């Protein structure tokens, strides 16, 4: 074999617009090895959390991810409520599930759009992002924000959804369902998409278990794990819905699972809205006066899979230690299985198929010089470091050639 050629994707992803660096070592068109560099966006959130009060941590963890911004507060609330032994009201359960499912719909639409963009099918990209807008408008109506909704707190939610808004939510969801039908038809029936995505980036059931992959990535390979079903929280144990799975494990199966999950989300929201009508307005909070000493593990099924938070409390008003495991942390790691042996064009698609979220995976913009141990904080030095790294990378690439 001739010397492998290094093809870099990053340090800034041209399509997903997040910082990461995939190094593809290729022989001709075939990817022979792959390495991943990260840390460009590490914010030290776990450490920062130890300096915040429990109420403040919600706002912090909400900023881990800009797309699924409610999944982290959801898991954190579950963890802290486990320490306190608090049972929230039914109305708060319904509201939490409504927020969680609306987020799933907009996140899946965002991915379908990006997937279309990756394929060069920009009509799907435009459609999906256009149809995602009403969902974000709905969020603005319910929570006051299009993203980072600030709805969660220990013992319930911050804002109630007035019953007068229910018909409006139902109307918008009916419109979104019609558009989802159109989009699903366009994707599932398109022979070009079939040809381009079937058999590409296959992950077997064993690969999923080996890497501990979660969410639609696991469900597309026939591993039917879904925290909403396995360890029900909020209203997921009260409403009827089914876990969507596929068996092929390729890019098409992942798209199929996500598209069909949107319909389940609509059904869950509909049942939760009916639940809201049966409960009394305003009953969304349980007073929590103290967080006792102990350990709590909270899980939530985010659009990309299981989010896991482990909180250790020493009885004070801030966590003694807060461990966060985002869903992409295990899903991205599967790239070695899905990309090696494929062509470069297929590898880029396989990398995107797990719906990677690099912000979630890293969680400090504080830089140390490895040689002197001194902290580098000023902007000029950071820019210089960036330029130096780019030059090194260029040199590395030209050397490989």
């Amino acid at each position, binding site marked *: 074999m001739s010397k492998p050629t290094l093809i870099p994707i990053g340090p800034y992803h041209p399509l997903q617009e997040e910082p990461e660096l995939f190094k593809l070592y290729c022989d001709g068109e075939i990817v022979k090895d792959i390495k991943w*560099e*990260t*840390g460009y966006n*590490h914010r*030290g959130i*776990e*450490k920062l959390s130890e300096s915040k009060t429990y109420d403040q941590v919600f706002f912090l963890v909400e900023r881990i991810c800009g797309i699924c911004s409610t999944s982290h507060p959801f898991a954190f609330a579950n963890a802290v409520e*486990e320490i306190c032994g608090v049972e929230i009201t039914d109305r708060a359960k319904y509201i939490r599930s409504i927020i969680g499912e609306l987020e799933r719909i907009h996140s899946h639409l965002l991915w379908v759009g990006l997937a279309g963009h990756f394929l060069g099918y920009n009509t799907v990209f435009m459609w999906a992002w256009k149809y995602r807008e009403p969902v974000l408008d709905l969020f603005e109506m319910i929570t006051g924000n299009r993203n980072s909704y600030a709805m969660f707190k220990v013992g319930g939610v911050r804002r109630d959804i007035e019953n007068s808004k229910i018909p409006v939510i139902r109307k918008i969801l009916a419109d979104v369902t019609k558009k989802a039908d159109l989009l699903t038809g366009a994707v599932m029936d398109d022979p070009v998409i079939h040809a381009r995505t079937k058999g590409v980036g296959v992950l077997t059931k064993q690969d999923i*278990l*080996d*890497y*501990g992959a979660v969410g639609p990535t696991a469900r597309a390979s026939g591993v039917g*794990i879904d925290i909403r079903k*396995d*360890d*029900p929280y909020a209203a997921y144990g009260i409403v009827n819905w089914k876990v969507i799975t596929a068996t092929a494990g390729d890019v098409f199966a992942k798209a199929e699972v996500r598209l069909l999950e949107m319909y389940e989300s609509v059904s869950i929201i509909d049942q939760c809205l009916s639940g809201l009508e049966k409960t009394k307005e305003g009953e969304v909070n349980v007073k929590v006066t103290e967080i006792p000493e102990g*350990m709590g*593990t909270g*899980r939530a099924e985010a659009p990309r899979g*299981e989010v*896991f938070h*482990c909180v*250790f409390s020493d009885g004070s008003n801030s966590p*003694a*230690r807060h*461990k966060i*495991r985002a869903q992409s*942390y*295990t899903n991205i*790691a599967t790239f070695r299985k899905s990309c090696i042996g494929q062509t470069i064009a297929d590898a880029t698609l396989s990398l995107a198929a797990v719906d990677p979220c690099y912000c979630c995976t*890293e969680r*400090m913009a*504080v*830089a*140390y*010089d*490895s040689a*002197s*141990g001194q*902290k580098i904080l000023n902007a000029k030095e950071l820019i210089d*470091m960036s330029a130096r*790294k780019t030059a090194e990378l260029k040199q590395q690439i030209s050397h490989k050639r």
Partner: protein
Amino acid sequence: MDTQTIIEKFRGKFGPDVLDTEIKNRKRALVTINPEMILKVGEYLFRDEGFRFIIASALHTRKGFEIHYHFSKDEIGLVLNIHVILDKNKPQIESLSNMFNATNWIEREMHELFGIDFLHHPNQEKLISEGNWAEGVYPYRKEFKEDKK
């Protein structure tokens, strides 16, 4: 199989190496084990009992360095925490990454942030701060003080 049965079976299998058990509720349990048994426990849970590895949480406490390995039994929604306490001055434990890949990144991260050594890890390089962080400085240790300048 319920949580109680799983814990009893675990106790039967590892006997004196199980230092403590706590069943919080039917979906949460904690078992403290002798750290030298981690490979055998990992193999038993992953291969024989079909547990899924979620993640591991490291802590720096008065007792030393502690690791909670979180495993999930999805069929019954159980989170089983395998707890180990490592030496204060020389924290080290066998790596599970030769058995399954799910622990690979988190062991590298714990090594980077806490300075815990994972023996026989296939590739114990830094995960998030390669080239940007001083050697031997572990930011998640309690003695680490941020430079306020």
